[in-house]
């Protein structure tokens, strides 16, 4: 079964510290993976997708097929990064997203 695991419910870091939000997946083919973010009182929005290989708001994520991971990283956390982050996998059939449980990132000043 296709599954996304985000092991941390909450990650709390100080401003300026590095951030790594973990995401592991189970998938038999070539996965397409996403990170979505939901800021307080805002709708869920796409942060980045692995096929575009870009950096958004200083965040990057590299697909590691050997470790079946797609961790989200940022070298220096900012207070405005505080939000809920979801890792998602595009299901093979039907173009449907499977979401992880989400990780709350709290950046403290």
């Amino acid at each position, binding site marked *: 079964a296709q599954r996304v695991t985000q092991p941390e419910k909450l990650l709390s870091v100080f401003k300026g510290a590095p951030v790594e939000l973990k995401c592991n997946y189970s998938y038999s083919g070539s996965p397409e993976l996403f990170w979505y973010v939901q800021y307080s009182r805002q709708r869920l929005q796409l942060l980045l*997708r692995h096929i575009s290989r870009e950096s958004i708001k200083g965040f990057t994520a590299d697909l590691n097929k050997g470790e079946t991971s797609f961790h989200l990283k940022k070298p220096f956390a900012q207070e405005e990064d505080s939000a809920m982050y979801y890792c998602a996998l595009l299901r093979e059939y039907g173009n449907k*997203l499977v979401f992880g449980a989400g990780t709350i990132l709290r950046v403290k000043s």
Partner: protein
Amino acid sequence: SAVISQKPSRDICQRGTSLTIQCQVDSQVTMMFWYRQQPGQSLTLIATANQGSEATYESGFVIDKFPISRPNLTFSTLTVSNMSPEDSSIYLCSVEARDSGYTFGSGTRLTVV
């Protein structure tokens, strides 16, 4: 990317009643998706709504409980029928946007009392 308008944004309903949630997109899309997010949990796909055919439901979700309409390429509705407190959730509409992944509506926060 596509812009989605979803309404109502929230509602408090009596058990046993039904609520219809509307999702309007500013461009034509082939597939529209309905998700549920129960308190403290992640998003779970309820069904995929295709224009001109019946919706495709995920395991654990049935048409009698969550009837869906898709009359055209820009609009869909999800009805939560015969509600119970366990149906209290956030319901979200989503569409696939060609260059920007999947876009989500702002959600409908439903409380059943």
